[in-house]
């Protein structure tokens, strides 16, 4: 076979002690580490942008919020199945924390900082996406937990939101407890965005907050009495004790978001709506403001 003999000839040459073969080998051996380095360097993004994570039950308006932040107008959306990352830029009306000490009249060019917004599916079966993005290392700056203020007026909707929020807050609390022993904890602030304030049946922001707190207290109560799960003895066995699994102030009857501060989680509740009555016109300034503060 012709091709076989070609291979053979080529191999013979490659192993022969001729100058050209040596040179070629030399060049390859010198170049390959450089090339590999360049390849890897390109892959690893030179500078990681700060990112925020969008969480919340299905239908709360996360994806709509993402498109609004990224493009300026909300898109039509359906239930998400996959996470989605978008590059957003802080609008010029919002001042980021970096600009805090800048004079109002400073006209020197000031570029609004960019950040990544990560949307996660809220469907019960797909929340592992949210948990993995939450626990994976990255320059996560904060969480935005979106709730549908209209749905929280029904008990089922309220429970769904509270249970999810409870899980997330517990993860954050455990993260904090863990990191206390090792490195310094990166405190992650949480914004609870009471969305859909435009809807007639929606609860006002203050009520959303207190209802969520009440419900979380109830969830906490039953969770503490619930069955152990089969995962006992897995990774986080060391915090398997009762106190480590209790969200907020241990033993307290009432739950308030203030209790999370002790665990390095700053919770803020702010209302708004992504979509408005008339086409477009949402009210999201408060949320932008929060993002600006935490950038």
């Amino acid at each position: 076979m012709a091709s076989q003999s070609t291979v053979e000839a080529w191999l013979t040459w490659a192993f022969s002690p001729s100058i050209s073969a040596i040179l070629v080998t030399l060049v390859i051996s010198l170049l390959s580490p450089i090339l590999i380095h360049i390849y890897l360097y390109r892959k690893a993004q030179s500078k990681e942008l700060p990112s925020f994570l969008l969480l919340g039950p299905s239908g709360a308006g996360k994806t709509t919020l993402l498109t609004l932040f990224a493009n300026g107008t909300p898109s039509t959306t359906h239930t998400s199945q996959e996470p989605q990352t978008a590059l957003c830029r802080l609008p010029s009306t919002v001042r980021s924390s970096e600009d805090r000490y800048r004079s109002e009249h400073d006209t020197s060019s000031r570029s609004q900082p960019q950040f990544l917004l990560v949307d996660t599916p809220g469907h019960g079966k797909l929340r592992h996406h949210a948990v993995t993005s939450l626990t994976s290392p990255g320059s996560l700056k904060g969480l935005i937990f979106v709730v549908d203020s209209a749905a929280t007026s029904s008990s089922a909707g309220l429970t769904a939101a509270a249970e999810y929020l409870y899980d997330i807050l517990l993860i954050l609390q455990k993260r904090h407890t863990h990191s206390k022993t090792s490195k310094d904890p990166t405190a992650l602030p949480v914004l609870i965005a009471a969305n859909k304030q435009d809807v007639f049946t929606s609860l006002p922001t203050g009520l959303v907050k207190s209802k969520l707190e009440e419900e979380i207290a109830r969830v906490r109560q039953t969770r503490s009495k619930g069955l152990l799960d089969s995962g006992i003895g897995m990774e986080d066995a060391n915090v398997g004790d009762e106190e480590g699994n209790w969200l907020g102030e241990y033993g307290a009857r009432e739950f308030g978001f203030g209790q999370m501060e002790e665990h390095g989680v700053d919770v803020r509740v702010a209302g708004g709506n992504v979509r408005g009555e008339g086409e477009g016109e949402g009210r999201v300034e408060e949320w932008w403001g929060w993002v600006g503060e935490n950038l």
Partner: protein
Amino acid sequence: MLDAFEILTTSGIVLWRKQYAPVSSSVVNSLINDVFIEQRGQKSNDGGKNPPYRKEKYTLRYTSAKDVGLIFVVVYQSLLHLSWVDDLLTAVRALFTKQYATELKKPHATTVNCRDFDQTFDALVRKLDTGSTRRPSEPDSDAGPVELTPPSSTASAGEDGVDDEDAPPPIPTAPQFKKPAIPQRQKQESAIVDDTTSTDITPVPTPDTSRPGTPSTASSHLLTAKAGPGKASRRARKANATAWSTSAPASSGDEGPIRKAKGGKTSAKQKRRWDADGFAADDNDPVLDYSAPAATSEPGDGERELDVNEVKAENMGSRTGKGQFVLKDLDDEVDAILASSKSSQATKETSAESSGLLGSATSRISGLFRNVVGGKTLSKQDLQQPLQQMQNHLLEKNVAREAAERLCTSVETDLLNQTTASFTSIDATIRTSMAKALTRILTPTSSLDLLRNITSTIEGPAARPYVISIVGVNGVGKSTSLSKIAYFLLQNKFRVLVVAADTFRSGAVEQLRVHVRNLSELSRREDVGTVELFEQGYGKDAATVARDAVSNATNAGKGEMLYDVVLIDTAGRRHNDTRLMSSLTKFGQLAKPDKIFMVGEALVGTDSVAQARNFAKEFVDTKGQLRNNGVGMDGFIISKCDTVGDMVGTLVSMVHATGIPVVFLGVGQHYGDLRGLNVGWAVDKLMK
């Protein structure tokens, strides 16, 4: 007609859509929930054709482009039989992914500027729409508030085109022409513009199926470039002729006037005969065959009818010629797309063979290299062997074959044509994908918080006891599991009534009595809840016993409730014993349990899947609807998990077969050996 067409990403953003009628967003949402997330009622489809999904009065058809993460959905009324929408989906998928490939592949893309897709889509619909075969019973459904072009205006548009035949074409008033020329529904007028091949009352916009005719050389300067579409649609029509042969000519009689209005040579046409399929019988008549090169300037009249519109609107402006050119290309392209999709369905992928020894050697070496380094695009062959290994691995873990196959298929569709991440081998990629699939299957849609449910039921103004019943085949550990649940409830200070509704197997009542005695001894010592046994001996109807027990727990409506939770033990039955199984239905309807749990064994060699299915389907309410959102039962208790080690595949098989979540695991002989399911733990064991 169509109600809506949507193109959305897997992350839920609608990139492009066209609504002919307002369709509630919940319709598409439930498609996503049921088919894509819960993967319910989906057959393994290798041909690429998905079964239609029905919701409310709509039928939804869909297809997806995995590599760019897009889903294409058509919504139309179930009354209509639109057999051409499959072709539409295929064509739109191919065209859209091609046209916007670069934008879609951009990282962080959340919108795609696809305004101009409107035109492509309209052209596609016009080309492919062959009408609908309507079920005769239904008088009318509508195309919705579409921007209807009244026939008169269409006709005048046509006349305009003819009038202006020698004059320079008018400048279009608006660059974006009126939405589609598609649903030209002319109800009030007998002059039907589009001579569709369908029989229905509502004329369906299918200009392309009209036979060519009415040569009008004079207007050729307007239409020259349209020859392509005319030709192609003709071809398409021929191709389709056999497929849609159910429809019959409808409007041939009405064609005279309209054609006259368009200034065509009507005389030639009136002589034409129609065959049963709605096509001109003398189709091959040389005079009429305008697809011949010599006559390229004369497109079909239906085609022209719309073309005039189009030419006026868009092609005559600054983009003269270009739009037409695109459309011409499009036509050929669509034909090619459809042909290739058909042929690929017919002939199952013949594996491409690399040519030559050297070629195969290098490709293999680079393949190995890429396998290590990553960045390999996965083909079917690459996946086949590792997937087979994965399937065997799952089978070893005691996952039922059916479930293992489905999981592997879903992993395959997930990964096909994907590129592996850097420094990730194919095996590792498959493992991650499989772990994800398993997590999704095992994670319940909404988690069960039994204590909360009980508390909210037994409190408040409408307080009543919470009823749980346990079913299962013989000897799987029903009574043991029931006692474990009772113990758990007692720890939470509930008053529990255990009901011996197994009035069939001798010794069943005595066995429960022993459990109850132990439990009440335990709870007395620990000073927690109270437990009692309710029994009426053997031989009585289980459903009646259960009902009596519940009314006993409520104190027959007189004052205080006596018990908080009623736990009903039922007789074990073979799942293929139809007589005993059917009594479960009555039991479910009479006792009205809040929760029905089925106990299944984790042991190897039980036909768990068939068991689960047969039990689930018995629990229908009086309306014939399956309980709990159509899944029948509320959860599985998998017993004897401590005896199987890592082989916890039964969990997957049962959930897969029924969509019912696993809520508890029995992990030992003691009353306290009941656990909730930790999905991470189970997936870990399965992937080990």
